[in-house]
């Protein structure tokens, strides 16, 4: 039953994940000299991989924008769209505890997020770490803030999921968890403290959101 549910969720999020992956491949690929659409985006040789002139560079801006938008789309698609189509009622009548249903959905969303965000970043890191690919220095520490972006994307996905699940008005408090998550992620992205503390902060936020999602799913009266 769980495998079927996972397959269904992956199928439904797959389209958005594929689009996000293509966009990431284009913008990160242009940094490697392999853009999907030539002439759009900065080309290789104009910047040091992972560094920027300002606080945040164009390539990182593109990366994090695509990642966060896709995370929010995944989260809302798995909740709001299902409520709208009333698929949730069908799912809740399957012989599975509610917590398992929602954890399976979260696992599917997280998998889509990893494929569309972490995987392209890993490829870009490996390219930058290979000698002879660019005429500039590379240290793994340079990629650290980009991995923070990935962690922030995960938190935003969970917050979007909670936002879609909560029974509240859109013009009321429904979006507040997502706004709070975005704010806290921005703080953790830019605060100059020891990186393990940053990732611990992201972990605490994620665990808190998963707990709230399960609690909301348990007490919510459907439809």
């Amino acid at each position, binding site marked *: 039953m769980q495998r079927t549910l996972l397959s269904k969720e992956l199928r439904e999020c797959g389209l958005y994940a594929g689009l996000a992956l293509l966009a990431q491949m284009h913008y990160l690929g242009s940094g490697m000299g392999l853009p999907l659409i030539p002439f759009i985006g900065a080309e290789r040789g*104009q910047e040091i991989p992972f560094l920027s002139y300002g606080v945040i560079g164009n390539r990182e801006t593109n990366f994090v924008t695509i990642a966060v938008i896709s995370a929010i789309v995944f989260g809302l698609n798995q909740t709001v769209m299902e409520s709208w189509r009333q698929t949730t009622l069908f799912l809740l009548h399957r012989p599975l505890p509610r917590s398992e249903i929602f954890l399976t959905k979260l696992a599917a969303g997280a998998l889509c997020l990893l494929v569309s965000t972490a995987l392209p970043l890993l490829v870009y890191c490996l390219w930058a770490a290979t000698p002879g690919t660019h005429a*500039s220095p590379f240290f793994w520490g340079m990629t650290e803030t980009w991995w923070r972006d990935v962690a922030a994307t995960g938190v935003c996905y969970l917050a979007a999921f909670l936002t879609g699940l909560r029974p509240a008005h859109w013009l009321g408090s429904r979006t507040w968890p997502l706004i709070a998550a975005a704010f806290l992620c921005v703080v953790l992205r830019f605060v100059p403290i020891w990186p393990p503390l940053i990732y611990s902060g992201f972990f605490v936020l994620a665990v808190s959101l998963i707990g709230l999602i399960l609690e909301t799913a348990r007490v919510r009266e459907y439809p």
Partner: protein
Amino acid sequence: MFVWLTIGFAVIHNVISFWSLSLLDFIANRDVRHEHLQLTEEGEPVIQSWGIGRGWTSRQLDGTRLPDSTGIKIANGFRVAAPEGHTPYSWNRRVDSFSDYLSPSTNWFLVAPTIRSSTAYFVGYEARSRRLVGYLGINGFSTAQPTKEQSFVITTSFYNAFAGNLASTIAPGNLPEPIEWGEDAAPPNTAQYANATPDEAWILSQGTIYGIQLRSRKVRVLLKDRPDALWLRQASVSRDGRSFLSLVARTETGLLFIDPSTGEQETTSISLLPYDSFYQLTSGKRLLLQMPQASRQGFGRQFVISWFNEAGEVERRQDVELPPSTESKILSFPTMVAASQPSPMTAFVAWVFGPFFSYHEPDATRNYFGELWHALIEFKLWCLVSLLAGGIAGWACRNRERDVFGNKHWFWPIVVGLCGWFGWMGYICVRPLPARLSNRQWMPIQPEPVRPIGTEIFA
């Protein structure tokens, strides 16, 4: 959930309050003119003023209006404050890029690989083949990565330890333009100096100034045994129609001027304050602009300008006082914080931890309780507003808990009182009012089950 909702609402509240205040500030200050004291390239002070819809105007100190405000060339000075004493945390500020502008060109990078060791070295890559060329450390060129002992020691940002003709091409995170240069092409946007080659740069490292020539890949010692040198800058001087580069280093007792080709030193002994600015004009004149009553953020309306002669002595001194500002302070930082953060907990956290992060000059002595007291005085409006908001929110929460939910515990009133206005909004979302019955009573959250009457067994 309460925490998430409270933070989410706080963000929305902050955006709305900041937008409202900036709108009010814009309306209130539409007719206000903002005035600044500037020094021209000739070393004469002018007062420049700017107003919405009126553009820039300039006048001399005696009030004579200058006809062409936009044509006035302003001198570039540099702040004399001591730099921060640590390697920057961000990688964007730990890598600077340069080119030797040869054909094929080599991209050179000044890199501080670790924060802890505060060391840096140059690493070069051939632009066309992207091949690693080698490294430059204090001992010159090598194909092996310099050890800590062979690297430059830079305990501050590159900006404070680096000077040179190539300085204009410094663009952290950006490579030099990836085009091929002629055999002897001069770097673009760099001045040609009579006493320096275009590819030379200088680094201050533990009291020694090293000269680095990227084209010949050589490193030489220009000056040593000056451990009191705090930072390095560059200035240009015109003599006989030719430009000469002058390196300027701040020491404990004043400023040190160094000729980059010969290493000749010239000292100007001045008592420097953190907010002072020093000007080396192209005509050779030297000026010091001081703000004796500068605010903690480095702003002030009283200035003292000192002109120095060639011997480094003050030959003229002038006091300047700008007219008092008529600007409305609606968008001042204390007002903004008071309007955007009506929460006792935020105020408390800011007061306790704020002094650790407050702006201060790096060479200033810090006093925690002094900073704390100063913050309490400066932000007394915030103190008042947050306490008021917290008190009202806590009181309203207590009434609601007691009258509606029949709860006599103090947990929610205390939490909501600490979080203030934001806490109240979070609270009413997680504890909404139940339905009201026809007898004006509130429906219990969990309605009592119908009492058994004993005949259910027959149902």
